[in-house]
């Protein structure tokens, strides 16, 4: 059967149409331009003998007589231990100057896991970031986005998690990543000594947009196969909004009817197909997915964060350079925070309730209301909580964070004011507390509020 064609019928956006026979859906082709440049392309539509392909490197400079060779296989990616420490592009080719992977190819975007074989997640991934470990624990097999806006240090946060997360492997997917951010990730992983357990698939902002569509699938296919071999793999994807935008671009080129703000109607299914790859294989390893979703205009109702929120198991809301305890949620935290330490849940709930009261007081103060003695305590507490817990520079273990929680509480309150169970207070409340004394009136208020919550 003829596999090489050189008559392109149409070039529109990054999609070309060619007349060919015997081509299969989602098959790959290799295009060689007259200047000898090669690019991969993938079949995205068959209509009679007309074959539409999205060209990974983009259609710029393609001519109607360029050679198109169909490869007879769908998109594949290499899978081997040799990939550790390596960096690849969105087509799976090395971008670190190392040798190409030539063996053991696996298919990408494989079938989904049978829900009947899934298990209820039960293991925490420690990150040494108190706002995660204590307040919204990350769980093995969880899929969780970081909702943020441009300018926030989401990539720094991701890099820190990559360095510190207690997993076997990190797979980092960069989707339209700025070149300096790509360098940043590479340097941080290298200096932090984590490169040996990392694989990177990076599509930078200067690279072809179609390749960026492949990045999540490549990362997840490799991750899935390592997980089947017993590895706990953490997949980091930044930024999934760029992925959605790339989908939008192709959909519009293909003249699909857009549903909401130009995004295709299957945006939900497309995102879900990626995030749902997160899984804990019984008797083997796991895939955990942590993505970045930048919200245009800090608008959580924008189609990308909105659809993402319906798919993922919570979200970390990063704004003003901290993980905001309100708006952040780990839906799976209950599965792991019961057995970590007996005061974990109490600290988690109690400190947030007090922090919420601090926020109210802060509003009152901003509006010029008079501050009571109780308000002063809350303000002191809020300050300590922000600087010693929420700040992204805090880098301590879960146990240290819990101890620090008690010490912050003891610095600001007397035990009765916090509404904690007496047995926990007896066990954990620092002995030589410098807690403020009086006033009694405020005590009742805390108590009732704590009970209301």
């Amino acid at each position, binding site marked *: 059967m003829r596999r090489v064609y050189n008559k392109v019928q149409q070039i529109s956006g990054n999609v070309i149409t060619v007349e060919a*026979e*015997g*081509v*299969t*859906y*989602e*098959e790959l082709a290799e295009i060689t331009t007259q200047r000898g440049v090669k690019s991969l392309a993938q079949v995205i*539509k*068959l*209509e*009679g003998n007309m074959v539409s392909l999205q060209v990974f490197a983009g259609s710029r400079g393609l001519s109607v007589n360029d050679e198109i060779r169909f490869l007879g296989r*769908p998109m594949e990616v290499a899978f081997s231990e040799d990939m550790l420490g390596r960096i690849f592009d969105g087509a799976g080719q090395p971008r670190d100057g190392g040798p190409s992977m030539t063996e053991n190819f696996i298919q990408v*975007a*494989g*079938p*989904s*896991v*049978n*829900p*009947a*074989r*899934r*298990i*209820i*997640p039960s293991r925490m991934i420690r990150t040494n970031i108190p706002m995660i470990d204590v307040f919204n624990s990350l769980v093995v*097999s969880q899929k969780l986005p970081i909702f943020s806006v441009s300018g926030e240090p989401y990539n720094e946060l991701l890099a820190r998690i990559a360095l510190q997360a207690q997993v076997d492997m990190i797979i980092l997917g960069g989707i339209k990543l700025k070149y300096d951010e790509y360098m940043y990730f590479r340097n941080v992983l290298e200096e932090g000594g984590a490169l040996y357990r990392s694989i990177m698939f990076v599509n930078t902002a200067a690279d072809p947009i179609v390749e960026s569509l492949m990045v999540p699938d490549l990362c997840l296919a490799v991750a899935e196969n390592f997980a*089947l071999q017993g590895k706990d793999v953490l997949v980091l994807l930044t930024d999934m909004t760029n992925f959605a935008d790339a989908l939008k671009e192709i959909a519009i080129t293909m003249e*699909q*009817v*857009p*549903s*909401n703000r130009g995004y*295709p*109607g*299957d945006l*939900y*299914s497309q995102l*879900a*197909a990626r995030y*749902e*790859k997160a899984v804990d*294989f019984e008797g083997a390893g796991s895939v955990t997915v942590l993505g970045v979703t930048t919200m245009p205009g800090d608008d*959580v*109702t*924008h*189609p990308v964060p*909105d*659809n993402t*929120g*319906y*798919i993922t*198991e*919570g979200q970390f809301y990063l704004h003003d350079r901290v993980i905001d305890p309100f708006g952040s*949620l780990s839906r*799976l935290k209950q599965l792991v925070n019961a057995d970590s330490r007996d005061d974990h849940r109490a600290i988690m709930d109690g400190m947030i309730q007090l922090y919420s009261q601090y926020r109210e007081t802060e509003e009152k103060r901003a509006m010029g209301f008079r501050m009571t003695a109780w308000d002063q305590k809350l303000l002191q507490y809020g300050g300590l909580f922000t600087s010693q817990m929420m700040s992204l520079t805090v880098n301590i273990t879960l146990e240290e964070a819990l101890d620090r929680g008690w010490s912050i509480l003891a610095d600001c309150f007397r035990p009765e004011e916090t509404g904690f169970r007496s047995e926990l207070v007896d066990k954990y409340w620092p002995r030589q507390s410098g807690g403020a004394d009086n006033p009694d009136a405020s005590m*009742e208020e805390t108590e*009732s509020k704590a*009970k*209301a*919550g």
Partner: protein
Amino acid sequence: MNLSSGKIVGVNGNMVAVQFDGSIMQNEVANVVHGEQRLKSEVVRITDNRAFMQVFESTKGLKIGDDVEFTGEMLAVELGPGILGQIYDGLQNPLPQLAAAHGFFLPRGASLAALDQEREWTFTPLVKEGDTVVAGSYLGHVPEGIFEHKIMVPFGLLGELTVTHIAAAGDYTIQHTIARLKDAQGNEQDVSMTFAWPVKVPIEAYRDKLLPVEPLVTKVRIIDAFFPVAKGGTFCVPGPFGSGKTVLQQIISRHAEADVVIVAACGERAGEVVETLREFPELTDPRTGRSLMERTIIICNTSSMPVAAREASVYTATTLGEYYRQMGLNVLMLADSTSRWCQAMRELSGRLEEIPGEEAFPAYLESRIAEFYERAGLVELQDGNTGSLTISGTVSPAGGNFEEPVTQSTLKVVGAFLGLSYDRAYARRYPAIDPLDSWSKYEPILPKERVDQARAILSDGDGVRQMMMVVGEEGTSLDDFETYLKAEFLDAVFLQQNAFDPVDAATAPERQKHMFEVVFTVLTRSFSFESKDQAREFFYQLRQIFIDWNYMDADADQYAEQEKKINSQIEEHSK
């Protein structure tokens, strides 16, 4: 019958165009031949001799010229004993059996029989030779878990039929012929314990459809007392992400006083289904003392499973619900989420290049939603008894905005609207059903005028709360402040419910009535407060005692004592 065949002439996503010979029908099922695999698909449009088919599997690797074999049948489910307790995908493939055969993944083209073909069921005949029967009549029954599973005359048989043979009591497999029926023309037909029924066609083998009146007790107070649901009725639960839709559905699926509960996980997270899958077998149904799984069917087509099968899954669930309703049972079907089903329609419509309606949903969105909810109902069966199918659907509106096509189309056809509010969820007030916006057309289990009075106080209290945000507490009169505290009290002790407390999670109707009487006394009583602080303190204390009471088992010793405490507290401050 001569079945048609065809060849693929186009592939676009999960849509293939097929050139066919012979006669095919709309919604007919065909198999795309791909090597050893057979990929199931359904006809969605016919133009000349070209059929457009949605494929229930990935279309990767298909090519022009691939063979397509039509089956002459519409997409159907297998009905018969052995469905209860099963976990199916959207096309009724049993998932645990697929896992046993294929491991972790769902391979393309894999399918298995929905019902156990080997198992023998103990059949007891209910008719004798010479009896006259119609579609839906009971021929006999077999025990299935806690129920007598009725073996019925297949719903597709027309007119009156005469029983010419009926099997003796004994053990048979589902394929064994248990009866022979003769129609008016003298044609005879063998009947076994199982038959197929097309999922998109409502089962109408009943005498009459009745008005749903009897409440379906969910044991969720805010629903039963304020926004009740009727057996055979419909309700929808719209809410933004994080407002607790799925948790609410899970609670209802556990505690609702229905005979059979069907959970259709349609395009949602796999993890949530897993909780149901793994926990239900461990939980006991308080009504029967048996495992909850024995009354449950799970249809599971989660978000990463093929989209076309997701579209089919709500129909599969509804058809199984109608089937058990025909046995005189009260069936509750929970679809989570109907938005994903509608999105599946939208994807299909886009690929068919239909002219889009609002937000690119197809123009027929509204009628499809209406048809779906209209399959609920209370019916009078052929034997004079009644059976019901109650349908609930969650809706996941884009951006949490209810002014979108799926929510609006749903509101037009349902009997109750339980709108979840992000503000309530944010304030940890669960269940986060908005007590001011929600509504129900069904009768509550409590006296209606009292409920209306309570709702009025709730609404007044909210008015005061909003005013206070502007003028502060100082600018509010003591009377208004009392109204506000009463509304907050009603919310805190009655409308809010702790889903994780073994006692508070589910409140029996009797207890709800009793509780409401006490709450109502507080709401209508005039109190003598000297200051707002005193009023606040009183209500906070009362609330605390009341919540403690909510956590007490009704049989516990302290229960009556605690009630006395509440009453004396009320009396102490009454005018």
